[in-house]
């Protein structure tokens, strides 16, 4: 495949960055090219040297073509696409509409204190869904979308671990 693909795209939401293959270890800004060096040492851990600056970097997730990267403390989630898979994505999103379902994952391990919605509850973006106690705090988990609760997988006093699917919400437009 290496020889067959000419270009790859890193996609994050609506943002798209194209890179020609073979991938060079430089990024061009305007007319200048800046060399990228990936390094590791005891004192700093893994880091990237770029434009005369040291950037801390951690790979939080790497799964198939999905990567979550923490660069300079900000996390970025990219999927890597080929020209064809990009076209396929456009076709599929046209065919099937937008992502219909939102899963509410536990952001950290903790205990459910209260569930404020039931199956069928209509809910708006920003409204509280449940209370999760962790790190001595009662954290209100708010709804990231407008929609209808389709599944409630937790109840009070239940312990959850990170990334457990607590609720599922069907997104309405």
């Amino acid at each position, binding site marked *: 495949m290496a020889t067959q693909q000419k270009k790859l795209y890193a996609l994050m939401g609506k943002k798209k960055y194209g890179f020609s*293959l073979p991938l060079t270890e430089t990024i061009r800004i305007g007319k200048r090219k800046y060399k990228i060096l990936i390094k590791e040492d005891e004192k700093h851990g893994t880091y990237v040297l770029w434009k005369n600056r040291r950037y*801390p970097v951690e790979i939080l997730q*790497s799964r198939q073509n999905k990567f979550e990267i923490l660069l*300079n*403390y900000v*996390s*970025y989630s990219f999927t890597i696409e080929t020209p064809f898979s990009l076209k396929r994505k456009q076709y599929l999103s046209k065919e099937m509409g937008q992502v219909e379902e939102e899963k509410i994952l536990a952001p*950290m391990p903790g205990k459910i*204190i209260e569930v404020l919605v039931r199956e069928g509850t209509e809910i708006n973006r920003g409204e509280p869904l449940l209370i999760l106690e962790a790190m001595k705090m*009662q954290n209100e988990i708010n709804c990231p979308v407008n929609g209808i609760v389709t599944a409630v997988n937790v109840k009070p006093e239940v312990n959850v671990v990170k990334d457990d699917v607590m609720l599922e919400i069907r997104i309405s437009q």
Partner: protein
Amino acid sequence: MKINNILIANRGEIAVRIISTARRMGIKTSVIKTSAEPAAMYLSLADNVYDNTENVSEIPVFLDIERIIKIALDTGADAIHPGYGFLAENPYFAQKCVDNKIAFIGPSPDSIYKMGNKTLARKIALANNIPMTIGSDGKIPSENEAVRIARRIGYPVIIKAASGGGGRGMRIVSKEEDMPNMFRLASNEAEKAFSDPSVFIEKYIENPKHIEFQILGDTKGNIIHLGERECSVQRKHQKLLEEAPSIALDDQLRKEMGQMAVRIASAVGYYSAGTVEFLFDSEGAYYFMEMNTRIQVEHPVTELITGIDMIEEQIRIAEGKELRYSQKDIKFNGWAIECRINAEDVQSGFSPSPGKIEQIIMPSGDNIRVDSGVQAGSVIAANFDSMIAKLIVYGKDRKDALANCKQALDKVWIKGTKTTLPFFRMLIRNPRFLDGSITTSFIENELTSYHVNSEYEEMLAAWLATWLFVEENLDESNLKINFEEAKNISPWLLNKRISRH
């Protein structure tokens, strides 16, 4: 009475902070080792470590009053510093110390009780003519009562835990239909956090600044204030950045509010360090909110502009000594800013992000102070708070301090957990923050993104993701598959495999 050996009934950065002053004063310190973090940094700095790792109890040790008293007696401590948190504001604990002839480094049980009970505190403030928001006269027994009172006060209102503080158990209610639900939530949270479900209601001041006065009092009845701190950068009542002084106050107002703070402290015969919190509205009016009867997380900004070591004063006061300063001795120099660098994921609403600190490098210099209880290898555990370090920066004026802060933030290096750094890097570039006009609703109401957005860094991250994909999938030279070695099978095994099939 001279204090010789302090048991620090706390952990993390505040334990480290107390040890450093105690050591300078020639006082021995004892700390408690827990099974939750047996390798914590504060343990390595104290003179004496009490090993509590074998103790199996439902109650975590720093919440276990009887246990702490027993440890104090066992270690021969003549004083206990509770740091901030549960024990610091528990009148029963303070009384227990007194009963066991251990000096409690903090105010009297009576002042803790009076100020800790928010409905009582309101009554005292009212009796002393301290400006206050209108609110319920006492605890509210039921949802219906809450609805009735809120209707009288007028929305928006805020529900607060009667025995609370620090934002827990607080709910803002802007319309009547939300009241029953919010009332239950607040009461539930208050019960969880403070073992007391009672709550009260106040008029909610929209878009106020949070301004608090540091006070110091001795057992002889002398009370002074050390000026104000502004803590308007907060999210859901959790402070993120504090500064001293506040850009909103002039000398006249500072003097007036300082006097109010001293007045209410005097009303309860207050001694040791304490903080009187005010809401400050857009018209310049201020309202007494509550008094915290302990050392605060953000005390270093006051220390930097006054030059007074507050822990040292607390210890001296607990020894029964008279205050070394009168109000006129207190001079304010320069500007100080504190950023709370927490293990939190700002991109998913500041949710805790526990983990192991792999590397940590904090900036240093004349204008920088770092209070931290972690080092490389420390674990930010899910059962404690998420503080990694406080970065405190000084400047000759606000502009200078902001510039120093921006520089210092860029020098922080922390690997292993997500942190609030991207938030501060955004904030330090935000014009509303820079001009000093923000209020406590700034984060929730005005920001659409809680982190710095750098186009170049995003591009670099995109490149990295692509590079990882290529390394993992397309670069065949990376996957060195060897089919030949696989054929190298001992004849013993090979013959048997072949003969079976």
